[in-house]
Each structure stands twice: as C-alpha cells, then as structure tokens.
C-alpha cells in the first residue's frame, strides 16, 4: 500500500515537473523510472516547439535548466571557403564570358 502511494507520488511529481515549468521550452525528456511520464513529456515538447532537434536526457525529471542543456543549434561552418569551394570557378567563368562578349 505504501509502495503504491510512493509510486503514485513520484509519477505525479514527474508529470508536474515535465509539464509545468518547462512547458514552453525546447526539450523532450525521458525518464528511467516512469514510462507514463516520458510519454507525456514528449508530447508536450512536440506540440510546443516542433522545430527543435530532440535529444535524450537521462535525468528523471526535466526542469527548465535541463531542457536548455539538451537543445542543439546549427553550428557555424568551420571553414567558409571550404563550404563554397564548388563555386571557386565562378570568377574564371566570368572572365571567360567577358572575353566572349568582347568578341561579339
């Protein structure tokens, strides 16, 4: 009986923790102790912030601070020149066009 009460209490706490403070934040949480809480938390995250990349968390609850640490954003390119290397020939192409137009 006491065990049931304890499990119920923990479940309630997890629900409150997942839905309450972090409701508008950009995270999803998983819990190792409560499958029900995990499901609810994922749904909340999906409906409030659909554009966010979701990562897993190993904490039992997902307060606001935890959600912030699990959010990822696109990194800036390490090397811009490398990213644009396929367009290196544009300058030469343009010179070629200039010659072509000069001979018209």
């Amino acid at each position, binding site marked *: 009986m006491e065990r049931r009460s304890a499990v119920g209490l923990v479940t309630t706490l997890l629900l409150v923790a997942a839905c309450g403070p972090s409701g508008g934040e950009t995270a999803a949480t998983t819990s190792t102790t409560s499958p029900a809480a995990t499901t609810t938390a994922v749904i909340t995250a999906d409906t409030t912030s659909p554009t966010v990349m979701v990562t897993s968390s190993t904490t039992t609850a997902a307060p606001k601070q935890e959600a912030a640490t699990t959010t990822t*954003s*696109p*990194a*800036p*390119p390490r090397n*811009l020149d490398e*990213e*644009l290397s*396929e*367009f290196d020939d*544009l300058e030469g*192409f*343009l010179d*070629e*066009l*200039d010659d*072509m*137009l000069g*001979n*018209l």
Partner: protein
Amino acid sequence: MKTMRRSIILAIVLAVTAAPAAAFAQQDTGGRDATTTSTVTDERDHRLLDELKARALQMIDHQLDALGRLRSAIGNSAHITDDHAVQLLGDISAAAADLEQLAREVEAATTVPEVWQLIRQIPGFQIGNVLAPKTHQVIASDSLVAFGGKLDRFAAKLEGLITRAEENGHDVDEAWRMLEDMNGQIAEGVRSADPVAESVIGLQADDWPDPGQSVLGAGRRDLHAAGQSLRVAFGTGKGIVEILRNLFDAASDV
C-alpha cells in the same frame, strides 16, 4: 638605137617586176608584226586569268578558314547546348560545301569574265556578317544561361549559410536583403540572355542586311546587358560571403 630600145624594155620589165616584189615584201613584214602582237596579248590574258583565279581561290580559302574557326569555337564551348551546336555545325558545313564547289568552278574557268563572276559570289555567303556573329551570339547566350544557373546554386548555398547564421543568433538582415537583390539580378540576366540564341540561330545569308542586321544588333545589346546583370549578381554574392565571413569569424573568436 637598137640598144636604147633594149634598155627601155629592160627598165619596164624591172619596174613591172620590182614594184610588186617590194609590195609583197612590205606585206610580209606587216604580217609578222601582227602575229607577234597577238602572241603577247594571249600571254598577258593567260597570266591575268591565272592571277585572278589564284586571288579567287585565296578569298575562298580565307572564308573556309573562318568557318574552321567557328567550328573550333563550337567544339571548345563547354556550355553550348547540343541542339544549338548541331544546328550551327550544319550551317557551317553547308557553307563550306558551297565554297568548295565555287573553288572547283574557279579552277575550271577559262576566261577572265568567268572568274570575275565567280568572285562576285563570295561575299554573298555573308560569313562575316551573319554566320560568324550568330555563332558567337549563340555560344554567348548559352554560356550566360549556364553561368546564371551556377549563380542560382551559389545563391541557394548562401541562403543556407545565412539561415545557419540566423539560427546562431546573428543579425543577418542585410545578408537577406542582398540575397534578394542577387536573385533578382540573376533572373534579369538569364531573362536577357536566354532568348538571344533562338532569335539569331535561324538567320541565313539571305537575311542580310534585313532583318539580320537589326536582329544581331539587338542580340548583341541583350547579351551585354545580361553579362552586366550577372556580373552584378556575382558581386552581390561575394558581398554576402564577406558578411558571413565576418559573422563567423566573430563567433569563433568568442
């Protein structure tokens, strides 16, 4: 008295025989002069004919060389479309075949007026006025369109990079505005260049001067305008790259 009569008869005989002989002698000399004059004139005519034929063949070779250069320009173009290349090469081959036929007629000609008549046909091919400019314009039109396509891909890449910068919290309003300009400039350039190839490729020698002159003139203007728009678009793209470079450099310094 008898001696005197003999002398008179001898004088008469001499007079009768000597005068025609002198006349014949004179006639004989005049005939030799005429023959000599006629031979000199024939030689001069023959030399003139040979020189004129050589000159005609040289003019034809000059035109054939120009056609060879046009073939090379098409072969060396990385951007001309297959359809346009086939059409232009067909026109060039037809002109070359006609010129080679003309060369054979020149070689077979036997009189100066005949060669002159063949020489007068050479400018009618209008290689310098129609075939050469239209070939160059088609190549330029296709190349500008290809360049516009590459610039389009460049702009798409820049759009992705601007998006990433924005998601990292950078202010990229200026980059977005420039990208919009760039896309407009690319579209304008392609819009000017693209129709030129189709408008000039059908021109033939008979279309000179009208409508060939005006069509080729308009094509030249449109191609130059297209080149200018695409050059500006490329410059705008480079400006966006500089903005991104500064943003990412600043971010990596933090």
